């Protein structure tokens, strides 16, 4: 029997790894990978809470399914934007795409 805390700590650690990836990486695609890690941590949390607290209701499962759909949509649009930026600017490093700054 695995206590709920183990799953929650794992999800929190995965979330913080994703956060580090988003904040510290230069490549825009790597930033999107960090976002995917964070979304995975969220879904692990949802499913763990479902299993441990309310395994007879499906609200949490519907929430998790919608999060799957939203993350897929967000990755598609994000990667399309990255490809489009690469075509126009020739780079995907996040700190070189600064044409709108002072």
């Amino acid at each position: 029997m695995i206590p709920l805390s183990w799953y929650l700590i794992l999800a929190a650690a995965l979330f913080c790894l994703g956060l580090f990836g988003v904040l510290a990486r230069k490549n825009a695609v790597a930033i999107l990978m960090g976002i995917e890690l964070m979304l995975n941590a969220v879904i692990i949390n949802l499913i763990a809470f479902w299993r441990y607290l309310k395994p007879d209701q499906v609200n949490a499962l519907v929430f998790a399914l919608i999060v799957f759909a939203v993350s897929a949509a967000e990755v598609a649009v994000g990667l399309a934007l990255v490809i489009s930026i690469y075509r126009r600017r020739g780079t995907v490093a996040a700190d070189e795409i600064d044409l709108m700054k002072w």
Partner: protein
Amino acid sequence: MTPDMILFLVIALVTLAAGFMVVTTPNIVHAALWLILNLFAVAVLYVMLNAGFFAMVQVVVYIGAIAILFIFAIMLTRHAMRDSGPRFNTDWPMAAILGVALLAALIWILSRWQSFMTLPPMLTSDTDILRQLGQALVSPNAFFIPFEIASVLLVAAMIGAIYVAWGKSGGKK
């Protein structure tokens, strides 16, 4: 140490190690492959949580579509199969400290919640949960509207992604 505890520790170790390699490896194609390993380990976690359906959805959606999309995007945005420059920003120590601080804060807050160490209740029959999920997604009293809005979101994302990534030649159509 029951066998499922050992299994959980192994899978959690693989997940966190793969996640760590995703955010630190300099070669971005390797980062995509470590991401695939991470997603696989998370799918195994879903099986351990008696949510086999979500394990399959994870493999089909994340590994079968999103990871392949990542690899395509990486191939299309590299300068002739080379990597470019340092992999981290200049502020990466601050990001590391922020990550560790957030992790510590989350664990501290959760440990003060009274249900933090609950053990899983026994499942009566887990074949009905799929039927309940299906009915909840299409029943008007349940989650029918979020389901439809999610499908509209997917169509909008599809159209948006096609239009944005079309390029200079056919973008005006």
